[in-house]
């Protein structure tokens, strides 16, 4: 056995994040680590990569016990990790980023030419071509990730850990990445992959380890299992697709009229005319980067549009302020939960009242009633099954999926008549995904309107009563639940025209 982790325990205060976990890994093997949000997957990998110290337990490499007390010692032992948040210097080139920290020595300073050549060779060897002189700034996410992977390979590691690498990628980029992983394993690298997408597990992994509440609850060879069994093991029950009930639509809660945004003469939004009625979920399908983010920002008062109108509940809110738009009954689950959706250092309570703390419920005469706020937070935690110790812990101590659940809970709980949700299930487990979907359906049944932006076409198709397809800032087509189909939407998403179908 190549790598062996034995009896790993890790606790944060009273929370046991890892409970007697064993893990082993063969050379050239791809092991998938799956489990619910907060199951302890990231923690286990942080222990392996030296980012966290295990409370107890042993790690063996090639039969010898090793002590890992930091990422640099992990790297020395041949263990690398592709970080969830890319740790790249934006203003530096690809080469500089890859060799950073282990630059080839030249006469006086480091040997740039050799570094550059190394990067080119490395790219060739692993079939990961990259322009060595490109600057990170402005690179698509998929390429940045490739830089990260090359950086890990440059460190000469034999074991590569990926923590939810596909969550931020477009479907094409995902395909590429999975191919890369298979390729790497063929060349003798061992890979540990954390993901919530079981189809990815089925596609690339050789073996899978299922975790629940800090414990290992199963270990299966991929060839002997299937998605159904895996998901059952993960959440402890069967996930069944519910029949979507029909809801009578009401008046229009949101409407955009000829919404146009030009940025530096580049047209970002081009005469966008869309609307959402009460009791309706409207999806925006599109490859990310085709104006969806800007659309949300102009609706929400974060960006001023060049021309056109945003109407909410019959009132013109064009180019006003976020506070005004919120007060008119709009809530938003932003795409990026770390940057836009939460304050890592804030407590759960502080995070739960953002956007609403000025309401009578929470504050009077400029004084915030933290007792009410704290109770409210507890209710959110309970209702949305957020795995948390108490509401005074910081947001950063929640697992990825659980912080997403709390953010969604916050925005749904205020009964706004119009909710915008961007990538609502990014990074949540399949149980939580079902739960969040049900919450959105519930909101729809309450006759509120929802605008859903998601790069997951399956999610759009499952939830939406109507779908708009966006391509390069334009609405390219509109479908109803009945007329929507994957092929046609996919075609429009890639720039096809409706009449060509």
């Amino acid at each position, binding site marked *: 056995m190549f790598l062996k982790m034995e009896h790993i325990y890790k606790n944060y205060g009273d929370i046991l994040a890892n409970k007697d976990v064993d893990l082993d890994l063969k050379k050239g093997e791809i092991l998938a680590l799956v489990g619910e949000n907060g199951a302890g997957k*990231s923690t286990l990998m942080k222990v392996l990569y030296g980012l966290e110290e295990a409370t107890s337990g042993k790690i063996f490499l090639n039969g010898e016990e090793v002590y890992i007390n930091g990422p640099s010692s992990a790297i020395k032992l041949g263990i690398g990790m592709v970080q*969830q*948040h*890319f*740790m*790249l*210097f*934006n203003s530096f080139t690809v080469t500089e980023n890859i060799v950073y920290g282990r630059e080839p020595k030249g006469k006086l300073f480091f040997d740039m030419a050799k570094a550059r050549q190394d990067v080119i060779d490395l790219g060739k060897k692993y079939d990961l071509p990259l322009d060595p002189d490109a600057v990170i700034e402005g690179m698509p*996410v998929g390429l*940045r990730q490739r830089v990260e992977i090359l950086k890990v390979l440059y460190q000469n590691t034999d074991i590569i850990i990926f*923590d*939810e690498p596909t*969550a*931020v990628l477009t479907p094409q980029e995902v395909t590429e990445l999975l191919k890369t992983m298979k390729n790497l394993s063929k060349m003798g690298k061992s890979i540990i992959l954390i993901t919530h997408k079981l189809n990815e597990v089925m596609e690339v992994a050789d073996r899978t380890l299922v975790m629940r509440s800090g414990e290992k609850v199963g270990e299966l060879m991929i060839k002997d299992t299937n998605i159904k069994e895996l998901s059952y093991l993960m959440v402890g029950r069967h996930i069944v697709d519910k029949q979507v009930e029909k809801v009578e639509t009401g008046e229009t809660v949101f409407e955009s009229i000829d919404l146009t945004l030009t940025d530096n003469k580049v047209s970002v939004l081009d005469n966008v005319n869309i609307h959402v009625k009460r009791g309706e979920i409207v999806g925006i399908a599109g490859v990310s980067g085709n104006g969806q983010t800007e659309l949300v920002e102009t609706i*929400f008062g*974060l960006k001023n549009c060049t021309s056109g109108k945003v109407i909410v509940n019959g009132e013109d809110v064009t180019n006003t*302020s*976020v*506070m005004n738009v*919120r007060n008119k009954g709009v809530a*938003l689950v*932003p*795409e*990026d939960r*770390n*940057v*836009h*959706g*939460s*304050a*890592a*250092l*804030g407590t759960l309570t*502080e995070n739960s*009242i*953002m*956007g609403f*703390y*000025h309401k009578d419920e929470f*504050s009077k005469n*400029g*004084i*915030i009633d*933290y007792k009410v706020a704290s109770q409210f937070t507890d209710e959110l935690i309970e209702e949305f099954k957020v795995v948390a110790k108490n509401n005074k812990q910081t947001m950063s101590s929640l697992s*990825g*999926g659980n912080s997403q659940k709390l953010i969604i809970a916050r925005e749904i709980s205020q009964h706004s008549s119009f909710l915008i949700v961007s990538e609502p299930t*990014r*990074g949540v487990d399949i149980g939580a995904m079902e739960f969040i979907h049900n919450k959105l359906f519930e909101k729809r049944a309450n006759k509120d309107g929802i605008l859903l932006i998601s790069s997951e076409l399956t999610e759009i198709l499952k939830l939406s009563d109507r779908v708009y397809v966006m391509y390069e800032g334009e609405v390219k087509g509109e479908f109803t639940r009945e007329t929507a189909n994957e092929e046609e939407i996919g075609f429009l998403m890639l720039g096809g025209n409706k009449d060509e179908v």
Partner: protein
Amino acid sequence: MKFKIKKMNYKQILKYLKPLEQPIVAISFALVIGAIAMLLAKSNPLVVYGYMLKGAFGSKFYLSTTLAKATPIILAGLGASIAWRSNCFGIGGEGQMIVGAFVAAIIAIYLPAPMWIKFVSSIVGGVVAGGGYSLISAYLFDKFQMSLSISTLMMNYAGRFIVLYFIVNFFLDTSSTGGKLQQTYKIPEEIRFPRLNEDYALTIGFFIAVAVVILVWFLMNKTKYGYESKMVGYNLEFCRFGGIKAKKIMYLSLFISGVLSAFAGVSEVYGTYFRYVSGSLVSGRSAWIGLNAALISAYNPIGVLVSSIILAGIQTGGSAISRFTTVPLEISQILQGCITLFISAKIVIKWRRKNTNSKKLNVKGGM
């Protein structure tokens, strides 16, 4: 109704002491380094610290001197805390103190009005002037992206010399020393902060400062402004999405910060000098010591109160050492230097961590 007597276990007690953790660590660190310095100079640190403790808190007289010295430090420390907490890294406490003290003194001396009106308008005028002075930096940042630390630093010098200009040309006290000292006339005796005891330096100013500590604690922890400014300090983008107007918070924080620092200057006029004496506020260094107090206590007002008193004690105790031992007065400066060092080390670490964070933040998505 039944009263429940809360049993406090040691964990809870620790929780209440939490704000004091950092100041105590920083100060202990300084004391250890100081002890090493003394050993090198062949003095017994225990004896020296004994004198220091006595000289700072050992008698009613010393204690009252220390608390009087702590008063402007506390107020300036609160001022710095309010700004820094919401990511407004201004260092203009000194300039605001000067402007506040000057305006308050001039109103108290020249306003032709009954005493109580004189008193109220002098204090209000002084602190508002300090707040307004601080707003200039806010404006420069807002409109021209001028770094707050640079603009506030410049404003310290500007304030000092503009005020000097006015004193020399218009408000000079020519009676007592024939105008050789650059100072104003004295403010009326009736409105000065009363001393608790004629022989001691302590005035009600200290108790007002303690009241302000409680007020600022309330402002930070209970009010809407307190929530908003804290969140702005945590994550600006999150606030934008939540509808908080960060600009408004910046102006407000810098104004309140200026008001508090100016009040530190006003309290010196009312409790120590009874006039504006050019240079006195600069050489007293209260603004900078206050900033130190704010930094070691992580902007917690209670922490500011405690560490200000300790820092003031190091000063008064330091002069006692030089009176009783051969250890020079500079030992208190060494101690303060060490505390500053400790703080800077902490800031650098934080800054580096933040840099890696912002590196992360540049990329969308992730877990």
